[in-house]
């Protein structure tokens, strides 16, 4: 793990305390995010891993207050960005915050770009709005940004429309837009899910490169444990709206505590396994998030579940190592070999 510089080690860029979000839906209240707490320091990457519907995106969007107001039934807890509480800001203050302080990369570059506007317009807009640049200056800066995210021949590409670019190129443009105002925190919500495997790696390398270069805090959200393994300083595993395990990346793989983390880890196919090795899938289905049953949400699928697990919700506790948190009554602390992780 990269050690954060001494000066910055105290200043937390993003601090989330006991965040709970309930959403309205036809089937009733959805407990999308439950009691989530974490901190992120400047220049660090936090990987958030969880399967579809575990509340990752809802949490990410709530960090920017981007959830549609009608959809949010209840919101508890606090989100502090550089010490400022997000949830009490006015719409105008939020508009000033989004872009220069916090920016987001979306999952699908096919839909995250406006099909009827040129790349130039889309990249230079935030520059004109937030930094007050002239049209020409913004255009020049946009070309630099496209260069920085590895778009070849940016000078000519800039006047093209999104449909003239490939998926990987479009995601690079989306990244360039997110970087326009030098955000101190970048949220990447499944940035590579919609891309080809070959392009995924390039985009991830680009993101981590830019993050180091600009010393941004980054929240890397994914459903793939392999994606964050080598790229995040900390990894948080999310299940049914809760963070069930948070640890520094190397600690997590050496001594995972929560059975769900272990199950996720075991379900990654490994290239050096013998052929015809059975892939260990997690049995059962992810829980419904409305009317959650009492007890640990993972208990019905957990091979180690005891009676207590079905009755009580396990609190988040500290494991042996500093900074390693988990929410399980019966942690599995068997060390696992790191070899197979991508």
């Amino acid at each position, binding site marked *: 793990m990269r050690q954060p510089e001494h000066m910055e080690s105290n200043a937390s860029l993003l601090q989330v305390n006991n965040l709970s979000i309930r959403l309205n839906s036809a089937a009733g209240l959805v407990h999308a995010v439950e009691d989530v707490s974490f901190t992120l320091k400047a220049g660090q990457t936090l990987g958030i891993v969880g399967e579809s519907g575990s509340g990752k995106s809802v949490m990410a969007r709530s960090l920017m207050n981007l959830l549609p107001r009608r959809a949010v039934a209840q919101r508890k807890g606090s989100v502090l960005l550089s010490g400022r509480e997000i949830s009490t800001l006015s719409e105008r203050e939020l508009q000033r915050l989004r*872009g220069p302080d916090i920016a987001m990369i979306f999952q699908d570059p096919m839909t995250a770009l406006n099909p*009827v506007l040129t790349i130039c317009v889309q990249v230079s807009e935030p520059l004109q709005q937030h930094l007050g640049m002239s049209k020409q200056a913004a255009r020049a800066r946009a070309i630099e940004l496209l260069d920085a995210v590895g778009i070849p021949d940016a000078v000519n590409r800039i006047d093209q429309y999104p449909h003239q670019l490939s998926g990987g190129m479009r995601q690079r443009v989306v990244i360039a837009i997110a970087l326009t*105002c030098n955000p101190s925190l970048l949220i990447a919500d499944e940035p590579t899910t919609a891309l080809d495997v070959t392009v995924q790696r390039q985009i991830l390398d680009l993101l981590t490169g830019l993050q180091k270069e600009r010393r941004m805090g980054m929240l890397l959200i994914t459903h793939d444990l392999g994606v964050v393994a080598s790229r995040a300083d900390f990894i948080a595993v999310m299940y049914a709206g809760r963070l069930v395990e948070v640890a520094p990346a190397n600690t997590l793989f050496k001594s995972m505590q929560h059975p769900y983390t272990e199950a996720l880890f075991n379900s990654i196919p490994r290239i050096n396994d013998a052929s015809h090795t059975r892939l260990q899938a997690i049995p059962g289905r992810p829980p419904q998030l409305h009317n959650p049953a009492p007890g640990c949400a993972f208990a019905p699928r957990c091979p180690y579940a005891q009676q207590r697990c079905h009755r009580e919700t396990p609190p988040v506790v500290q494991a042996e190592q500093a900074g390693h948190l988990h929410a399980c009554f019966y942690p599995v602390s068997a060390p696992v070999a790191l070899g197979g992780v991508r």
Partner: protein
Amino acid sequence: MPAKKHPKIESRAQNFARALQQVFGRGFGPGFWLAVVWLLIVAFCALFADWLPVRDPLDPVIANRLNGPFTSNLLGADGLGRDIFARLIHGARVSVVIGLTAVSIGMLIGGALGIIAGYFRGHFERALMAVLDVILAFPWLVLLLALVAFIGQSLFAISVAIGFLWIPAYARVARANTLSVVQREYVLAAKAMGASTSRILIKEVLPNVILPVLAYGLVAMGLVIIVESALAFLGLSVEAPQPTWGGMISEGKRHLATAVHVAVIPSVTMFLTVLSLNFVGDRLRSRFDVKESNL
């Protein structure tokens, strides 16, 4: 590493030219172009009526009364001996002005209301839709008569009255398109970059909504011309000496038994114009409508 050769990238102008070629270059057929030519002629007459070498459309020459085509007058003369050809050309002006103004009014007001309703939803949308439904449920001719009686019979007043009738239709088209655009991720992405609501409406929503709304415009213009003639038939369009196509048909009906051409010639002119508008509008709409053209 040597610089890689990249495939040639078109300049902005080439890009635009290619887009134009894609839209207009293939498969419209001769009918489309005939319609375009007819519309251009009508537009030209409307613009330059005063300078064209035609007779005075208001000058009654009693000797020519009800003369047929290719006699004293090119297309004959009406019941007061006025030149029908000149009246057609000057009447085109009324049709074109009313068509353009009414459609613009409907498009601007209806389009804006529709976009706002589709973006903000909530009470405003429900109230607006209820009001629009009421307007649509009203018999349009009765509504139009009431409006004209209220605001007068000038060219502008009639345009406004007919334009008012088109607000509900445009509001619905704009709202429906806005609803689908707002759900796209690029709107959320713009919000995530700190774009203000007005910026999102103008930069993200409007460019995506304007094409289907514009495409509706030509077809609507054809209908507007017919509505104007209906008003003229009731004697409620632009006041008397000013020639309008609807007014000419209406005057011609008195002479139907003796001089058919007085009513038929303006009818055919109007028929061709409305047909052309529908034809061109429909072809353009199917070319621009993503769902239909499968672009």
